[in-house]
């Protein structure tokens, strides 16, 4: 049983999804979905807890490695799977009230099935060691998220989903073209196998083209500035629960795939020494951080504000990854986790507002601090995390990024990074002032505090941003272990 754990992460939600469509009873499906999500989370945690004994390799159907598909679990993939499934589980626990209000009852079981499929795709991208398999799971998660987004209440939701579908498909196709070229040059799809054979063909133009296609394809999925245009609309018009889940996990998994691409398949030497990808990444990240944060300041819809902030935050992760040392990589991976918590939590707060106030325009949220004190306070705490105030998770990643930038003497990066985080103060505090210091709007005046069924999960996530701001053994600690193994530094060697 224990050795079958890796496959369970995928099989359970994948099998459950079509079954739930058949069951059709929405209450039963809801319960079962929650059960499945928490089970998957449990499996992911137990996989992570096994990592101290070394990485796990699981051969599907017993076919040996280069021929069959292999699932690899190492620190990085286990870590990403834990927070993806964890947030998936907590969001689905939070979901019922919000789904009840925002999605037509006849579509509930389809909704929960798509949700599970989306999670399957994301987890699959993490665990698989086969490049083509990555593409397959990428498509599973993407297609199901198009469906999820289009369930939004307004008629703009299907349009946003279509926009995402077109751009997302371009991205996925680029990724597939890259895979095709790689297969042509190396004759294998197994990641480790490609990595072995890549030395022989390194430097050929085909490899460069393959790398370029795959990078751009993933950049679209990550919503790296300036390829982010699909994201604000998709996040804004999707149902609240979908936004919570996708914002917290989807882009991070693409970042994860990008880390694998650079550090496992190609090498950092290839990406950062032969190609100037590190400078390009830094430039794109910093420009993206500034532009997207500035855009966030001018938004009038709270969801869109957070969406632009997400585009900016991806920049910090890429900034860390581009440093290609343990410190930077640790910072990038830690920020994936921390930002997943913070942004997931904040979108959950937004979901509470959506339920009780019914509008997400900032002008309608005026004065909600009085009528929805707990929800509003959760926004403040989550917002402090996003700003990166000490004792919050955001500070940990910012501090890691800062110190590793300085240790590489990247002064402009360090200074720009700090300045850019001040923009977060502006857009977060703008909402805080609206919540607490404005005369109440008529919608906020009559609003009730969000139900406990939603507040408790929200506070669990928001609270965990504080916990992981004070205690980082299981966030930055695991991220560091993952970074070391990616860079081939032994766990025992105390190389900083």
């Amino acid at each position, binding site marked *: 049983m224990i050795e079958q754990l890796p496959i369970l992460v995928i099989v359970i939600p994948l099998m459950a999804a079509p079954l739930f469509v058949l069951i059709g009873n929405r209450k039963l499906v809801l319960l079962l979905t929650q059960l499945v999500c928490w089970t998957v989370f449990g499996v992911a945690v137990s996989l992570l807890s096994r990592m101290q004994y070394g990485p796990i390799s699981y051969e599907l159907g017993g076919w040996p490695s280069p021929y069959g598909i292999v699932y690899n679990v190492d620190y990085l993939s286990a870590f990403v799977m834990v927070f993806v499934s964890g947030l998936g589980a907590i969001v689905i626990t939070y979901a019922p009230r919000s789904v009840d209000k925002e999605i037509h009852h006849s579509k509930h079981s389809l909704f929960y099935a798509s949700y599970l499929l989306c999670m399957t795709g994301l987890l699959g991208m993490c665990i698989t060691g086969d490049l083509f398999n990555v593409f397959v799971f990428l498509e599973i998660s993407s297609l199901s998220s198009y469906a999820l987004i289009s369930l939004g209440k307004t008629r703009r939701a299907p349009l946003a989903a279509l926009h995402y579908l077109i751009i997302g498909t371009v991205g996925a196709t680029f990724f597939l073209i890259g895979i095709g070229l790689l297969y042509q040059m190396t004759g294998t799809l197994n990641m480790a196998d490609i990595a072995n054979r890549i030395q022989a063909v390194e430097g050929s133009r085909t490899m460069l083209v393959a790398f370029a296609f795959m990078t751009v394809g993933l950049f679209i999925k990550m919503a790296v500035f300036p390829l982010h245009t699909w994201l604000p609309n998709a996040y804004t018009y999707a149902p609240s629960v979908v936004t919570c889940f996708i914002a917290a996990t989807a882009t991070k998994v693409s970042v994860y795939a990008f880390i694998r691409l650079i550090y496992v398949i190609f090498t950092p030497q290839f990406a950062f020494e032969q190609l100037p990808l590190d400078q390009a990444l830094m430039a794109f990240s910093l420009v993206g951080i500034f532009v997207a944060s500035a855009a966030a300041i001018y938004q009038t819809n709270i969801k869109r504000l957070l969406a632009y902030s997400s585009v900016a935050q991806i920049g910090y992760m890429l900034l860390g990854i581009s440093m290609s040392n343990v410190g930077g990589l640790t910072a990038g991976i830690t920020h994936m986790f921390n930002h997943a918590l913070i942004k997931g939590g904040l979108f959950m707060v937004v979901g509470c507002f959506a339920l009780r106030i019914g509008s997400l325009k900032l002008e309608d949220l005026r004065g909600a601090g009085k009528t929805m004190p707990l929800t509003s306070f959760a926004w403040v705490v989550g917002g402090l995390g996003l700003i990166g105030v000490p004792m919050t998770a955001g500070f940990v990643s910012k*501090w890691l990024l*800062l110190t590793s930038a300085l240790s590489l003497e990247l002064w402009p990066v360090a200074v720009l990074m700090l*300045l850019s985080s*001040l923009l977060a*103060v502006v857009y977060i505090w703008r909402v805080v002032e609206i919540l607490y210091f404005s005369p109440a709007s008529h919608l906020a005046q009559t609003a009730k505090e969000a139900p406990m069924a939603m507040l408790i999960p929200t506070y669990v996530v928001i609270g965990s941003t504080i916990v992981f701001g004070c205690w980082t053994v299981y966030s930055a600690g695991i991220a560091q272990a993952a970074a070391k193994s990616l860079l081939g530094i032994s766990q025992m060697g105390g190389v900083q």
Partner: protein
Amino acid sequence: MTPENLIWIAILLPLVAIALVFLVGEKSPNIRESCTIGVAVTLFWVTTSLAGFVFSGERPSFKMGEILPGFEIAFTVEPLGMLFALVASGLWILTTVYAIGYMRSHHEKNQTRFYACFASAIFAALAAAFAANLFTLFVAYELMTISTYPLVTHHGDEKAKKGGRIYLGILLSTSVAFFMLAIAWTWTVAGTLDFTPGGILAQPNIDGKISDFQLSVLLGLFAFGIGKAAIMPFHRWLPAAMVAPTPVSALLHAVAVVKVGVFSILKVSVYIFGIDLISETRLSEGANPIMMSDWLCYLAGATILLASLVAMTKDNLKARLAYSTVSQLAYITLGAALATSDSVIGGGMHIAMHAVGKITLFFCAGAIYVGAHKTNISDMRGLGRAMPLTMGAFLLATLSIIGLPPGGGAWSKWFLALGTVQTGHFWLLAALMVSSLLNIAYLIPIPIRAFMTPVGETPMKFKEAPMMCVVPLCITAVGSVVLFFFGNEIYDVLLPIATSAR
């Protein structure tokens, strides 16, 4: 009780107060406030017993845990921090008593939140005072900013929002843009952030990891990054924060917030750079060498004078006191920048002297507002007859702020002046003298006019503010005089911070 335990007890006590305040809540205000006072008294007792150990030469320390590998939350108590903790915890009791009188006569709303945030500010102040390394200090510093924001914006109106915006905007952005960068830089060159007698930057300087010029830049990042020290041009938050209720202005903007700022600067000067490094690093050679901290000395000198000049133009009493605070804080920064043993001790002393003096003045401003509903100085003529105790206390505290005996401030200013002479900064000595004259010009007329000017038509009746307000301000006024007679003791207590460097 071992001093190690006293440390964490002291730091945890304000948190207990927060819990109690929330637990009791609006239901029974009397119990809620008694809880705060009870905890405050216990805290003062704990800090005094801790002071016994620290002032007799012990340096107890307590480790909370690592946030990140190499960056830990840890506390070590040394005399400077001990003095600050004593001042903060002692004045917390009096301010709470005062706040009860003030807040209730004003029927202020959200008093539960008020007392809870108050306690969390004290928590941050104690954590900063006992911090064993820059990392801990930074965490406490930022907590202080966040936890005082609801106090500054207590009234929740448009004015409070604007004031709060300036307050948070300046304090957060300076700390993130400069202070955090400075700390990370220090860590990269020195490999540690521990407060060490003699400093940690001298060795990297010898090893060539940081040049003399870079040291000066780093000092600048610290000086501007610690925005709470209100060095010009980053002083605007302090007057903006005066929208807060007066007890907040009193404790936070005369004691906790601003003193955390100058305390941090002193700590950085003494334990990160080391006063030897600051006073011996030259940026240019020659007959009149430029020292690395010269620019900061003159900037502090300019702040002292300019803020005093601005204070003269303010008719609103709290605004005048705010600019006076900006000026007085710059004295302490000057002490840190001069970096002689006398100037550093003078700076440390001034933390205590100014705290007691200035809190009295703020208490008086609040009492006048409660008792006579006056905020402008021009309306306070003849008020001495109606409020003799308040105005008498004002006069005593004024002496201390100006630096005239028998006010405690006389000693700290004396040592700071000594510092300017020892380093040959005669222009700064002149600035100190002129500033004292300016202090006289903008503070003394207030009580003098209150007592001397005959009242217009109707003689004012005796009408003091509630006892809860008047008693604390009388105690602090007397305290500012009593401190004058303990100048020698404070000097002896602080001496180790200046000599342990050698």
